[in-house]
Structures are given as structure tokens and as C-alpha cells.
């Protein structure tokens, strides 16, 4: 296990912008938690109901068969197979139908031909799903075919689909935000976050396509910060990582390693996730992460060219950055020495 630890978790006063972003994320989550918990439980209950999924799968297959031009080749073949395969295949198709905008937008009024009794019962629940989604905060704040407005390109960066989702994104926001804020300044954190999120959403909509399943989470935005660190420090200086190889003393701890390792441990898996996931089945927005990281790379490029920092000569940039890092390291060492002496 290895992950960038950088300057660690700093006091809020040393990284106010980072903590400002953290507070917004927390505030949005807490403020929407009530409507989230009310709608999410029922929505999950319906989405996990086998009978509902089977009927939805059969209905989806029926729609694909009758209007094949709206669906991909993969879905067309799956639809054909589902009618003569087992219930599991129909359930899978039913789950995929939730992500398919063509199905979700027209299913309520579509005249399905099949088990009319099952369809009637399914349709009643489907309308309930639509109502629940309309009231669900991740659908309101997230970027989806039902909410594709420009506002959602920003608001999705502050909405999360659960506590665990929020927790991990905030951990990485603090680690990278604090480091950037103390080295480059708070404005880089804000621009990196919002710009990374925006470009991430644009990359998602152009590479993966907006689906009826909403895009939410700060991961695209945090990827912007991670990309900025990875590219800006590349060839300049090493950054601090925490590693844990074996549960034996000497095989875990901190190490100064090249910043490109961030790309290896974070963005290469994203790239392979994007390349290996089929458009219809992916649940992680890999393309949003890649887009965010690309924005971070662009910022780093601009930074190194001196376009983003006034009063710093292009040629002196590397030295300046090295000085900053060295100063931080010196401060840390002298603090440690002081502590030892005091101890």
C-alpha cells in the first residue's frame, strides 16, 4: 500500500481555502441528508426488488427490440438474449435500464407488449422511482440526463452519494489541498478544485456520455489537485508518500518519492478502468477523474511557463519551487529538533 501523504493534515488556519471547500462539501451533505435518507432507502428497496428488475429487464428488452436504433449493439444483443435466458440476465438488463436515458425518459409512456399484469405492477413502481429521483438530492445536484444544466457542472462537485464516498474524497482533498495551499497558495486550490471538477464533468459528458444515473462527488475536482501536484513537482522535487509493504519494522513509514508515482497509483488505474468499462455498465466516473487530472496537468504546465505566477522569472521557477519545498522541509526538521531538545 502506498499513497501520497505530502505535508499531511495541517491546521485549518494554515490552509483556510482547503478547509473552506471541505466545509462546503460537508454542509451540502448534511443539509441534504434528510431528503437523501428518506428517498434513498425506498429507491434502493425498489432497485433491489428481483421481481421489479426482472419485469424492467423484460420491458427494456421489448423496447430495444422494437426501437433498436436508439440502443448500442451490446444492448441489442443482450435484449435478444434476455428473452430466452434466465431470470438473472433479465435482472441485469433491468439494472442497466436505470442507467439508460432512452429507456428512463420514455418508459412511462411506452406501450410495452408482454405480461400486462406484471407491466401494470411494474409501471406503478416505475412512476414512484421517477418521483423519488426527482426528490433525491444526488439527482438534483448531480449531472444526469434529467438535470443536464450548467449549474450541475458545478454543483455535482459538492454532492456525494454516501458517507464513505464523502469521507475518501475529503481525505484526499485535505492531503493535496493543504500541501498546495502552503506551497502555491489558496487560489491554486480553488482554481484546481473547481476547474478540475468542471473539466472532469466535460470529459465525462464527452467521453462516457451523460446517463440517467447522476454524476456526483468531488473526485473529479480532487483529481485536478492531484494532477497539479503530480505534474508541477515532476522533475522538480520528490514528494512525501506513506508506504506499508510488510508488517515488519523498517518496511513501513514515509519516503520521498518522485511525484509521477501519483500518476501511477491514481490515474493509471483510472485510465485502465475507463478503457475496460463498457459504456453501459460502468459505475465509477473514470473519465471525470482523467479530465480533472488533465486540467491539473494544464495548470502545472502554465505554472511552469510562468503564466500563473507574477514576479517569478520562467527560468527561476524550478529554483523557487525547490526553495519552497526546502524551506518547508527545513522548518519541519528544525521543529522536530526543537521538540527533541524540549523533550
Amino acid at each position, binding site marked *: 500500500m*502506498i499513497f501520497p501523504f505530502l505535508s499531511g493534515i495541517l491546521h485549518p488556519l494554515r490552509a483556510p481555502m482547503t478547509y473552506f471547500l471541505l466545509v462546503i462539501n460537508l454542509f451540502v451533505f448534511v443539509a441534504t441528508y434528510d431528503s437523501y435518507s428518506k428517498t434513498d432507502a425506498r429507491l434502493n428497496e425498489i432497485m433491489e426488488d428481483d421481481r421489479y428488475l*426482472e419485469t424492467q429487464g*423484460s420491458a427494456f*428488452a*421489448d423496447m430495444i427490440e422494437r426501437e433498436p436504433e436508439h440502443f448500442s449493439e*451490446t444492448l441489442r*444483443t*443482450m435484449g435478444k*438474449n434476455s*428473452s*430466452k*435466458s*434466465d*431470470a438473472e*440476465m*433479465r435482472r*441485469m438488463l433491468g439494472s442497466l435500464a436505470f442507467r439508460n436515458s432512452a429507456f428512463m425518459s420514455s418508459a412511462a409512456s411506452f406501450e410495452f*407488449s*408482454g*405480461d*400486462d*399484469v*406484471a407491466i401494470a*405492477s411494474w409501471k406503478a413502481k416505475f412512476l414512484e422511482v421517477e418521483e423519488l429521483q426527482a426528490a433525491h438530492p444526488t439527482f438534483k445536484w448531480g449531472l444526469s440526463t434529467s438535470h443536464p444544466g450548467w449549474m450541475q457542472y458545478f454543483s455535482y462537485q459538492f454532492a456525494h452519494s454516501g458517507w464513505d464516498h464523502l469521507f475518501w474524497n475529503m481525505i484526499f482533498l485535505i492531503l493535496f489541498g493543504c500541501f498546495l495551499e502552503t506551497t502555491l497558495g489558496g487560489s491554486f486550490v480553488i482554481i484546481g478544485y473547481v476547474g478540475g471538477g468542471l473539466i472532469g464533468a466535460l470529459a465525462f459528458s464527452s467521453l462516457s456520455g451523460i446517463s440517467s444515473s447522476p454524476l456526483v462527488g468531488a473526485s473529479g475536482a480532487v483529481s485536478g489537485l492531484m494532477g497539479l501536484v503530480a505534474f508541477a513537482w515532476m522533475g522538480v522535487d520528490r514528494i512525501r508518500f506513506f*508506504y506499508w*509493504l*510488510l508488517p*515488519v519494522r523498517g*518496511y513501513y513509514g514515509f*519516503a520521498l518519492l518522485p511525484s509521477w*508515482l501519483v500518476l*501511477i*497509483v491514481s490515474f*493509471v*488505474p483510472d*485510465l*485502465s*478502468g475507463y*478503457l*475496460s*468499462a*463498457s459504456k453501459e*455498465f460502468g459505475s465509477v466516473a473514470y473519465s471525470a477523474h482523467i479530465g480533472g487530472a488533465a486540467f491539473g496537468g494544464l495548470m502545472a504546465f502554465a505554472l511552469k511557463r510562468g503564466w500563473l505566477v507574477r514576479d517569478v522569472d520562467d527560468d527561476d521557477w524550478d529554483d523557487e519551487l525547490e526553495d519552497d519545498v526546502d524551506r518547508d522541509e527545513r522548518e519541519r526538521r528544525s521543529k522536530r529538533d526543537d521538540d527533541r531538545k524540549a523533550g
Partner: protein
Amino acid sequence: MVFGHIPYDEIPNNDSRASSTKRVAPELESRLASPTDRVAAFIADLVILVPLITLIASPFRRQALEAQLLENSEGWATAYFLGIGASLLAYLAYQTIFLTLWGATPGKRAIGIRVEPLWEDRRKPRALAAFMRSFAICLEALCLGLPWVAVFGNVRRRPFHDRVGDTVVVAVRTNRAAGPPTVAEVSMASGVVAASLFVFAFLLSVQLVRLKSGMDAEALIADLEETGGLCAPVGDAYRKWIPPSGEEKPTRVSVALTLFQAEEIDDECLREEAEFSLWGSTDKATGYLARGLSESNDSDVAEEYFEKVCTTEPDSDACKAVTILDTPEVSEDPIEAKTAESDRENVLDAMASSLDSSSAPYLRVLFVKHFESQRRDERVLDMLEALPPHRALAYFVSSERSRALWKLDRKTEARLAMRATTEVAEPAQRVEVTRWFCDNETMSSGCSTEAKAACDLLGAVVDQNEVFLGEAGTAVTYLRGESCSERLTEERLSDLEKKFSNDEDAKSYVKALSSLKKDEILEATRLLREIASGENKSGPFFIEANARLTELASSADELKGVRDAWSQSDPTQAGWGFLGRRLMERYNALKAYSETVSVGTKLAENDGIDRLAARPMIVATYRSGQVGRTLSYLEKLGQVPTLESLTRDRAPASDPDSFNEVLFEILSKDQSRERAK
């Protein structure tokens, strides 16, 4: 250069085992990398390797995933193996390039160890040696990394891959070096290898057994894929279904419904077939009917489907089936209720008569069940005759026929039909049919030769597979059969007690049988009363204990306890009718006619009276002066013997209260009355 100065003849020629007699060159001994460092370096390499390999294999992963979803097994296998090949190439390239360039992979460099050629005057291995070493690591992975354990056992800590590449792994800094393995390490390595080989051999044998059984499953899947079917028995029956000449083959869902009614497939199987039919828009009316029947747990949903059948196709056979299945509300007014029931029967009779060779086969199966419930066994036989001779229906037709013949008092034919049924039945079905016959034979004639024969057939199946004894009903009948058997010795009884050691009721019942065998009637009665007064007031052992107590009673007063227990038990429970009939017959045998009529009336209200049960009621009602009721029970007999045949068959010293004597008396009076007219 590290080892160049060591003369060749000083280098041990066999380094596979640590030995006190062999010495490693002192300089090398002081530089060998520790196994912990090597493991840590491997994990550090994974930090880079795993994302890179995942990236390279990702297009193949996507292809494999899509092929799997599309059930394209060939495409999946191709993508899967290409993915593995690409990953292996990436690994080989990573190892070869870094070892050739740096003498260490990034992970090794980070930890501070490196790979050096053993025999050459170089600090880094040549490309070919690095490649061969990496390839050997891949082979080691196939053996679950077991050869790597040699780092603890080999004198130079060289596992298979180091020996293939003629390399040795050394620490960059001597203070991290480990030296040659100790005796404890060597012993541990040998132990690990031996234990791993043992576990591997065990898992391999388990896997081989699984593979063998898996091949059968694969054949089934292949069959399903070939037919495009969902439920294998339905697909099989559908393919082999031969329609009557000139008629069309029934639809697949119609075949499924027939098999379901014949209890050859379960409701899950029927549901899949129904959905296949409904969403494929073929024979939708039958599809709705099948879907409704598959919803046995939710009567509201089932009702919705049944309603849909007749709105989809009002004149279809499926709609007729709904009429048969429909249970109309019973009016509170008994006359109205009787009229409604009679009208319904007339409608169903007309419908049954109108069936022809083009009618759906499930209709006949439904009518078999309907007439069986109405105790109209002649009609049951008619319907069975008209069912197509299909292998999948063989058990249903044969078992129903044998039961109907028995109820029609054509016992010899029934026994032959039962024997024919056991030929076509699965073990569980054999248990079902032989159990029914053992029950009825013993009830009708005690431990007669025929009863013993039927019970022996049950015993033969159950003895082969004792899992059937887990079902209390089967266990009771099995024990009843045993009680008739000549082989019921003390030794056999003790075996039975052991066999049922976990079931208190069964154990007490075996003890009661043992007491009866020794003519200890009081002890047997005590044990049977103990079972009858137990917690389970409706289980098979409760019924059986009461039935046995009925047999042991010598006066009507002694039957009071059994009668009270029977009256208080639930009439819908299995065995209730059986106990009621035993009670009625026993009262009749004891000439307690008012009690016979009372029990018979309650039985008729709740369970109905068939031809066999009508006999004691005819005797009891006639002897108690209820002649009107006698005539109504005479109707139940169907074909009444003639006076001539009764006169011919009368035994010289027969009981004047026996059925034949009473019938003779009734018919004689009738004839006298006719003559007087």
C-alpha cells in the same frame, strides 16, 4: 566484479541443500539479500506493475466482460487468454528491461537489493539471462510460488528463477544482508514444501471430482443453449411431444402447464416458461394462466393473472381452465349453495364432454384432479385414457389410474397399475405411490398378503434411501408396514429403535409395536396414548397412534378418547379423514350405529364419503332406521350388486350385520315390495 575471483572448483557444485560440509564464498555469504527484503521488493514492484498490467490488459477485460454478458463463450475465452498473454508480456518486459539496465527492478532499488550474475564478471545480468529469469518466475507463479520457498533452503538463497538465470540476489548494503540459511530455515522450508504438496494433491483430487460432476452440468447447459429453452424438463418434453394425428403440437407453455399440473415441474420452472411465452407474445392466454398458477404464494397476483386470461382470449382452453380452477363463493343458504354447486358441476361436465383431440392437454389433467376431488373416479379414468401417452406424464397417469381403480373397488387392477407405476417412477414418486397403497391396503384388510406386498415395496425403497424417513408420514406408513412384516423380530425392533433414535414419537411407536408383538396390550395402549396426548395434535404419529388405539378398543366406550381427539383436531390436516374412517368402521364393527352415523356425518361434511366409506354408513343408517339416508349412500356405491350375485356369494355363517348381509336384506325387501305392487 563480485565473484570473478572465486576459482570455479571452489564453488559448490550442488547448492540445492544447506550443509555444514559445504561452504559459500565468504564475500558472497556476507552479501546475500534477506528473504524479507526480497518480499518487500516484490510488493514494491507490484505498486508499479499492477496499474501497468491492468492498463495493458484493460481492452481485453472490456472484450471479455462484453462477451460474457452476451453469452459469447468463444469471445470470452479469446479475450481472456489474450489479456493473460498481454499481462505476461508486460511483466517479462518490465523485469528484463530493468534488470538489464540497472541490475534491479524499481522495487529492488527502493529496498536496496540487486540481481548479479553468479558466474560472470558483470554487475548486471545479460538481457537473455534476465529474460530467462523472468520467464522462470512466471512458471513459478503457475506452481503458486512454491519454488520461491528455496530462498530459505538453498545455500545461496537461489530459488528456481535464480538458477535458470544463473543469478544471485544480493544486498547493496552489507548491513542488510542475511547470510546463508540456518538449519531452522532449511527445516521450515522443507516442511512448507511438504505441507503445500500435500494440500495441493488434496485440492487437485477434490477439483477432479468436481470437474467430473461439472461435466454433466455442462452437458445440461449445452442442451439448454441448443434449444434456447429455460427449463430443461419442459424443453425435453416439448421436443418429444407427439400430437394426435392431424392435430397441431401444443405450445411450449401449454406443455409446461401440463407438466406442472402433473407435478413434474415446480412453480419456478413454470414461471420462467410463462414469462418466456408472455414476453415472446406466443400463446398469451396460456402464458397468463401459467403465470397465475406459478404465483402460489400471492393469491391476489394470481387472481389478476386469471382475470387476464379470459379478457385476452375468452374462448380459449386457458379460459376453460380458469373456470375449472375457479372456486366460487359458497352461499350461506344451503339450498342455494347446493344448486350453485350442481350448476357448476353441470357446466364442467359439459365442458369435459366437449374435449377433443385438439384440446390442450393441461385441461384433461385439470379435469383428472377435479373429478378426483369430487370422488368421481369413473370420470378420472376417462380423462386419463384420453391423455397423450407421453413419457413425462407416465407417472402421473399410472399413479392416478391405480388410485382411481382402487377407489372403484377394482383392487386387482389397481395393484397391477401400482406395480406398473413403480416401474416408471423416480424413488420419491415410488415412495409416494407405495405409501398410499400400504396405507389403504392395511386400512382395508389389516396385514393381508396384499397389504404386506404393498408395504414391502415401500420398505424396499426406503431401506435404500433412509432420507425418506425424515418425512413423518412416510415413517409412520413404513412402521405400519414393518408391523405387518414377518421379519419384525426383537432384533429388527431394536434396529428400528436405533433408526428413529432422534424422533421421540417414532421411538415410542416402535416400543408400542414391540409391546403388541409380545401381547402386552396395556403397555402398548399406554405408549400409544402417550403419543396421542403429545404436543403435535395433527401429525402423522398422532393420527397413527389414535388409529391403533381404535383397533385395540373392544367397546364403544373405549373409543371415546379417540373420538374426542379426532373431533378436536383440524379437519384440513392430512390424515384426518383416514382416522375418521377408521373410527367409523370400528364403531360399525362394534355395532355402535348411532356413533357410526355421527362420525360418518362429520366426515361427509368435511372430507366427503367415497365408495369404500359408504359401506359402513349404509349398514349403520339401515340398522338405526334411517332408511332415507341409506338410499343416498347406496347411490355413492355406483353400481350396486344384484340380488342374484349376492345370493350366490353369501357365506353360510356370515355376520348378519356385515355389509353384504345388510345389502341382501335391503334388496330382498325391495324385490318383495315390487312383487307386492
